[in-house]
Every structure is written in C-alpha cells, then in structure tokens.
C-alpha cells in the first residue's frame, strides 16, 4: 500500500563541537516530492527515533530551500549534496545524513565554514569601490567577459568542492576550488582587476593554488555547475607568469 510507505533516515549526530558522534535512525511517513530538508523538519515535529525513543530535533543549517544559499550542504549517502535539492525518491534507503567532514562540526549536521570566509578575505574576494573621494563610474565590462563572469558569480560557498577534494584535509591548508574561482571572477572585473596582482600573490601563499593536484572532483561535485577546473587552470597560468616572469619583465 503506497500510503503506508516509510522513509528511513539515519543521522550522524553530535551534541557539541567536541562531542562523540553517534547515529540515530528515524522512520518517517512518505510524502510526494519529499526532500531531505522535509525529512529533517518532520523529525523536528516529532523527534522520536525508530525504536520509539524520544530525542532532540536535529540541528542543521538551511535557508533558501532552492539551492542558492549554500547552507544546507551535507553528506547524503556519503556524497556531498545540498539537502534541499536531494529528493528522497531518488535516494537509496536508509538515507544516511552526515555533516561535512572537512569542517568543524557545531552540532549534528551544522558545520562551521569559517575557513572559507577567512580564505575569501585572504584573497580579497571583493571589489574595492570606496575612496576618500568619489571615484566615479568604473570602466565598462565587455559582454564577452560578462558571459564568462556570470557562471563564476553563482558560487554559493557551500563547501562541496572542498569536501570532495583529496587535497583538503588536516595535513594541508589548501583553500579549495571555490576561492580560486572567486579570484578569477574578481580579477576579471575591470575595477577588480586593479588589485589583480595582490589577489594572485595571496593565491601563491602556503595552502594556495599550488596545492591543487588536479583530481578534478570539485567540478563534478559543484551544485552550481561552475567551471572550477577552468578557473584553476586559468589562475594557475596567471600565477606562474606573475611568480616566474614577473620579476623579469614586471
């Protein structure tokens, strides 16, 4: 009988940043067009495990519910996914939910992605337009450049590219594909280009672009289809030119 269908969800939980992880299993009534966020909401409405034990609602980050805010990224059946766009009917059950492994856990499925924010600050991932006087209008951007820049601007800092990257781990401070792609975006902008050299220099610091080992997992995992490997290659070329040729020809 279809209305008796159940959705089994296993969640890796953790009470605090230093807490010991443990698993809890939930059996939820199936509904049409269910996604993982709906499962988590249903658990919050009735936080009772499959064994009938009362528990706490699961902590997780989410906001837009349409794959543009990047906050609900987590491991779904072992793969980096956005919970809002992960449809239950397309997932193998039991559905395993785990927090991202490359970021510190705050609680349950919520992780702290401060590392990405710090990296974005490190590479000056913005366009300075304020001065002590009115700087006036900036230069115009060619439509061709706009077409290249737009896909890069869709990055939602979800961290999926870092999660799947073999080079991002405890032994390494690699900043990851998203940040490198943002440098490309801001260096492509006619006003942003005024700080291009500074951003490239930041990319060559320890943990920078050199730590990419070309496994190309990032581009496969990116939920926004950003051409991350193109961005990395492009920035790689600009970086070595600046580092190796820059001191000769300026």
């Amino acid at each position, binding site marked *: 009988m279809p209305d008796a269908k159940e959705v089994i969800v296993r969640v890796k939980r953790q009470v605090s940043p230093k807490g010991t992880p443990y698993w809890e299993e939930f059996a939820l009534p199936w509904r049409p067009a269910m996604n993982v966020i709906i499962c988590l909401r249903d658990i919050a409405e009735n936080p009772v495990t499959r064994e009938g034990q009362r528990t706490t609602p699961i902590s997780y980050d989410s906001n837009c519910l349409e794959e543009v805010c990047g906050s609900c990224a987590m491991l779904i059946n072992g793969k980096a996914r956005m919970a809002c766009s992960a449809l239950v009917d397309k997932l193998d059950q039991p559905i395993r939910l785990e927090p991202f492994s490359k970021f510190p856990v705050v609680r349950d499925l919520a992780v702290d992605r401060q590392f990405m924010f710090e990296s974005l600050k490190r590479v000056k991932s913005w366009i300075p337009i304020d001065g002590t006087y009115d700087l006036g209008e900036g230069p115009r951007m060619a439509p061709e450049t706009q077409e290249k820049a737009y896909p890069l601007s869709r990055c939602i800092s979800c961290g999926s590219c870092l999660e799947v990257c073999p*080079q991002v781990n405890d*032994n*390494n401070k690699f900043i990851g594909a998203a940040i490198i792609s943002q440098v490309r975006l801001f260096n492509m902008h006619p006003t942003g280009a005024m700080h291009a050299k500074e951003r490239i220099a930041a990319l060559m610091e320890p943990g920078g672009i050199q730590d990419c080992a070309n496994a190309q997992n990032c581009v496969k995992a990116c939920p926004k289809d950003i051409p991350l490997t193109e961005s990395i*290659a492009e920035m790689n070329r600009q970086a070595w030119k600046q580092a190796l040729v820059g001191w000769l020809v300026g």
Partner: protein
Amino acid sequence: MSRTATRSETDYLLRKLHSFTGVIPVGAFLAEHFWSNSYALVSRAQYDAKSQELQTIPFRVAVEWLFIFLPMLYHGGYGIYIWLRGKSNISAYPWVGNWLYTTQRYTGLIAFAYIGWHLYTERWLTHGKSTYTDVEDLLQNPYALAFMFIGVLASSFHLGVGIWNFLCKWGLAATVKAQRAAGALGATVGFAFSVIGVLIVLSFWLNWHPFDFYLK
C-alpha cells in the same frame, strides 16, 4: 603592494619545481632512454654501440647528476611529501580524475623504487659500462623480468598522467575542450611508452630483434 613582496612564495615555487622537473628533465630523459634502448630492437651490436656512445659523453658524471639523478631524487622525494599531504577518497567519489589522482601516487612510488633498483643493477654494478649481455643476463631472473615490466608500465602511466596534470596545472590547457585534448595527449603518450617499453624488454629477454632486416 609592499605586503605582497614579503609574502612567502617558497612553497609555491617548490611545488612548481616538482611539476616542472616531472616533464623536464625526468620525462624528457625517459623519452631519450626508451629511444636509445630501442636500438636493441635492431641488433645487439647497434645497442652496444649506442650505449657506448652515451657512456662516453663529455662531462658524463656532471650531466648524470644534474639532469638525471638530482631531478629524479627531487621529483620523487617531493612527490612523497605531496602524497602525505593528500587524502585519497576514491571509494566515496570514484570519478576518473580521482582514480588518476590516486594511481598517480602509487605508480610514482613504484617507478621511484624501480628506478632505484634499475640504477643499482645497470649503472652501479656495471660501473656505468652496461652492455646488451648484462641486461640479457639480468632478465633471465623471472623476478627481475617481472619488475622490469612493472617498472616500465608504472613509469609510462605516470608520465602520461603527468603530462595531463602538467598541462592543466600550468594553465596551458585551460578550457574544458583543451583539458580533454590534454587528457588524450597524456593517454597517447602513456600508451605509446608502455608499448615501446614492453617491446624493448621483450627484445632483451628473448634476444629478439624485429628491425634486424635493416642490416641484411
């Protein structure tokens, strides 16, 4: 911009040097080595003449250390350091690029160990005067023969993937289309080197000289 000048680029430059030495001179030497050794496919005498020519080049020891031994030591040693700072995850993400990432590490280690043994048997034990007969004798040992095949295949694979990596990591193949072409080039090089390497080993093992009709 004064802050940028004080930033450390050492890590960046060492990593770039690792990438560069893999192609030049290590990869280039592999190409030269396979070319010279393929004289065995012509005849024993042709091979001995070619190897004697190489063994009597001017500044031999300096050339060997500067263009062969030191770059290989650096590429291998730094490569192990890179391996230790990565964490393979092919079970979770079994994509082609990810497989190549992992196999690149294992083939690199195999090739490094093999080259060490190969240098010991063919360069040190023979005092740099290895001949066709020396190699032929060595390959009568089945373990040596097996290691020779493994070493040739691991080195060829590692060079093929390395060329793809190099073209991507220096931004010479930046677009998706260019990276696909770089992948095809790497695969072709890896495959061609494997075939030629295996033919050379077979030539020594079986005393087989398919191009000896040139001399008739």
